[in-house]
């Protein structure tokens, strides 16, 4: 037992097709299990709790069956399959290369005996027979070259020699695809972020394996300059768009308006339009203003960080916005962020620039009545800031995937629609002082069609050269004397 024999054993196992098949079946079985058992990354926690009892769910979590596809052992299985594929291909490659780089050009006696299709025709003039054969082969699509070996001349014609590489190309493409996926599994990430209009944010939320969340900072900030939705007549969504700008080091680098199916790609990071919604931050607040000295009430809309003009050079602004308030010791505090029960502190600035502060407490009495001011205000409504729901992903391995797909397309086309066919001819002695024209051929697939073609060649040779065909144990039909 030495290191060498251990290595030999490993090599033999890894380069065995059976190992590969076993590994891929295991991957397939676990993948199937991953579709039957709910997986955490693609299910809501509520759904999982409804589908399984708490004990079952805890057990599944512990064994790791609730996130099979991101488990380390699944990735290891894929790596092992990849390795096996590499070993299998490398083990068989020298043979294929030999066929390609050093083709058998001259058909020697042992080689002749091994071919599935061959025929021997007695001829008088060997050189002439060879020329006839050359012509006939050319007519049948095999452009032959003359080869000489140890003084004897023969013909060699082949088609599509590159077809031997088909399998290696397909396997290489598969390795490319797996490699791309494994790279993404290790250094890629996907997360979500919600950016309200007007804000610039740079931290995405990654969905964790156990249903939890983790955060990741992007190398830039995403600023949303606008977001909108168009719907069809029946209310179903037609288009979601967001006008985004990416800020690096405080400066805007690049801007784009994105829609679903048209992501923003920058420095290998892809930003997708995933959803849209209304945030609970107001864009503007709508008040009804009744002049204190009498008059009809009018509607005033105040942007949250701006001013609205009133008559007489007065203006209204919002000093404080509390979505859900409570009062303690004479101070107004925020209870929660849900705009259930708002309180607003308004600033009424007159033409001279003096600001009077007024409070509206929604649930007490929605009015500033009693607070001395030129107007009486009450809160009538609000417009809300939209937020854009973005999906952010970094998957550098995807180039491996796309390259692999293209390679596989080529590989499959070559594998299914090309075939490596070869034909040889040479003049041999019949052992009785005469000469025979030996012709033979082989192909790597579609054997029945090649056999028919070979029969055509045989018939043409027979017609031109005449004479009986010497019975050959390999050929099915023996032509009788013409």
């Amino acid at each position, binding site marked *: 037992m030495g290191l060498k024999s251990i290595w030999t054993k490993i090599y033999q196992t890894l380069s065995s*097709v059976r190992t590969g*098949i076993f590994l*891929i079946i295991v991957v*397939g079985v676990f*993948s*199937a299990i*991953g*579709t*039957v058992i*709910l*997986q955490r*990354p*693609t299910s809501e926690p509520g*759904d999982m709790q*409804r*589908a*399984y*009892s708490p004990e*079952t769910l805890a057990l599944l979590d512990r064994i790791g069956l609730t996130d099979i*596809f991101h488990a380390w052992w699944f990735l290891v299985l894929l790596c092992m399959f990849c390795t096996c594929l590499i070993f299998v291909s490398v083990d068989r490659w020298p043979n294929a290369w030999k066929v390609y780089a050093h083709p058998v050009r001259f058909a020697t006696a042992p080689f002749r005996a091994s071919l599935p299709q061959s025929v021997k025709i007695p001829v008088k003039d060997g050189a002439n027979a060879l020329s006839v054969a050359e012509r006939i082969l050319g007519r049948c699509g095999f452009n032959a070259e003359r080869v000489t070996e140890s003084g004897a001349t023969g013909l060699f014609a082949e088609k599509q020699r590159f077809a031997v590489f088909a399998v290696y190309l397909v396997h290489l493409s598969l390795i490319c695809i797996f490699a791309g*996926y494994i790279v993404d599994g290790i250094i890629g990430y*996907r997360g979500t972020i919600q950016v309200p209009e007007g804000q610039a944010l740079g931290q995405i939320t990654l969905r964790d394996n156990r249903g939890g969340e983790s955060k990741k900072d992007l190398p830039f900030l995403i600023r949303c300059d606008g977001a909108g939705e168009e719907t*069809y007549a029946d209310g*179903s*969504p*037609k*288009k*979601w768009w967001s006008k985004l700008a990416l800020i690096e080091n405080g400066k805007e680098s690049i801007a784009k308006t994105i*829609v*679903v*199916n*048209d*992501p923003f790609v920058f420095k290998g990071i*892809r930003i*997708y*339009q*995933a959803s849209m919604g209304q945030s609970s931050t107001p864009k503007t607040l709508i008040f009804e203003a009744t002049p204190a000295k009498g008059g009809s009430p009018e509607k005033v809309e105040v942007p949250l960080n701006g001013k609205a003009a009133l008559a007489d050079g007065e203006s209204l602004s919002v000093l404080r916005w509390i979505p859900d308030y409570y009062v303690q010791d004479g101070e107004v505090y925020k209870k929660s962020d849900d705009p259930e029960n708002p309180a607003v502190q308004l600033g009424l600035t007159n033409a001279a620039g003096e600001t009077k502060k007024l409070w509206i407490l929604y649930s007490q009495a929605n009015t500033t009545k009693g607070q001395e001011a030129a107007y009486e205000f009450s809160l009538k409504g609000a417009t809300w800031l939209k937020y854009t729901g973005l*999906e*952010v*992903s970094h*998957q550098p391995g*995807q180039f491996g*995937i*796309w390259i692999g*797909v293209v390679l*596989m*397309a080529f590989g*499959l*086309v070559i594998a*299914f629609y090309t075939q490596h066919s070869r034909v040889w001819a040479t003049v041999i002695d019949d052992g009785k002082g005469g000469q025979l024209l030996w012709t033979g051929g082989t192909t790597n*697939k579609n054997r*029945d069609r090649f056999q028919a073609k070979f029969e055509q060649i045989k018939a043409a040779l027979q017609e031109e050269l005449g004479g009986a065909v010497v019975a050959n144990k390999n050929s099915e039909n023996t032509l009788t004397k013409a």
Partner: protein
Amino acid sequence: MSEARVEQQRPASGAVLLVLVGLGIAFALLVALLAAAKAHTGPIYGEANMLYAALVLYTGAATLYMGYGVTGIERYVNAASLLTTLGFVANTAAVAHRWSVAGRPPFSNMYEMLLSFVWTLALLTLIAERAYKVKIIGSITMPITVVSVILMQLLPSDVRPLVPALQSTWLQVHVTLAMLSYAACAVSFALAMMFLIQDGMKTEAFQAITATGMVAVYAGMLLTRFRSGNLAVTAYDMDAKQEVMISRGHPLFIQIPDLGWLYLLVFLSAVVPLILYIVAQVKKDRSFFDIASKGMFVTILLQVMGLAIFVARVKNGRYGAPEAEGLFATAMPANPFLLSGIVGGIVAGLLYLLLLWRREGLQKMMPSADKLDTVTYKIICIAFPLLTLMIAAGAYWANQAWGSYWSWDPKETWAAITWLVYAGYLHMRITRGWKGRRAAWFAILGFAVVIFTFFGVTYLLPGLHAYAAG
């Protein structure tokens, strides 16, 4: 020549009559189902009328293919081929009309996908007939086509504008490839079955396969829809012409009383022949096969009865739902998968009966086992690159729309498993020289996985999760 062939077959007028009666019942049910189908308004060249014409023509073709199977008369298969061609022309007109009305190719909902699938299946049937001279293939592919068109008649067919995620050329490419590859897989399945017939696999084995298929359908149905003797079906709002939803993605299920028990009975009646087959194999006692055969008649009749009662209950009832107050109606369009499972089971049963009574005649009409084996391989050589490109196009579309080329979504995962099975078939054949029976079984397994990917993932898996664990 054809007269001589007919003479060689056993005089089986009783059997012929029985088969024709069975087909007649099936056709009558068809017409009853169609009474619930859409009104055929619009121009004569319009989609609704052209599709209806295609349905009638395909049904005629299917019946004639079966008739050819029964009698062996050449005229039948030639007429069937002609009807298939005419049906294909009408189908193409329907597709063209819908395309021009919608402004995009028909690929965005179940109705449209079935329309494309049916078109492809008819095309492949004609190709298999003309290029590969396998004439009898229509007897398997045409019934599938008819079932699909019936299903389509019951699905909502309004041209709906596309939601943002579906507004993509890659979607069209992906779905086209899916339909082409699944149709090719269906044809390879038909050829593999014919190979097994021609290769001399025992009729009892076919009985076991058919029984297994029926058991699978009814097991799936019971697993997801059986509620204490009632059958849960989706509630349907006749005015709004859509399913009643409790919340987004969760339809309301109503319960039809006693139908659950009926289908449990049907399930058991399908299990019996299967068990008898196993017993016969274990005990090496052929008499069990005969009892099993009778069991097959019983289950087919029960399934037809089950279908008729289902149709009757659906059309005339209002039923309660555990999750909402009041009574709700349901309709055929609300339960397309349930219906297709039931009808599929009956069609499989009828095909089995055809084999049982006319096996020798069928075998004379089909090409040699060797030829069938080779053509199966050739069709899979077409299906496999299409499957590969379909998965790739789907991954590219997902990458543009949702941020990742592969999310291990059940549909994606099962598509990959399908790909692996067919890759396995090719591998075994090319490197291991697997031909004949083993290759045929592999091809059949491949199609079973295709069916699961297409129906099981959408229908069975969510159903398993929605009501699991109390």
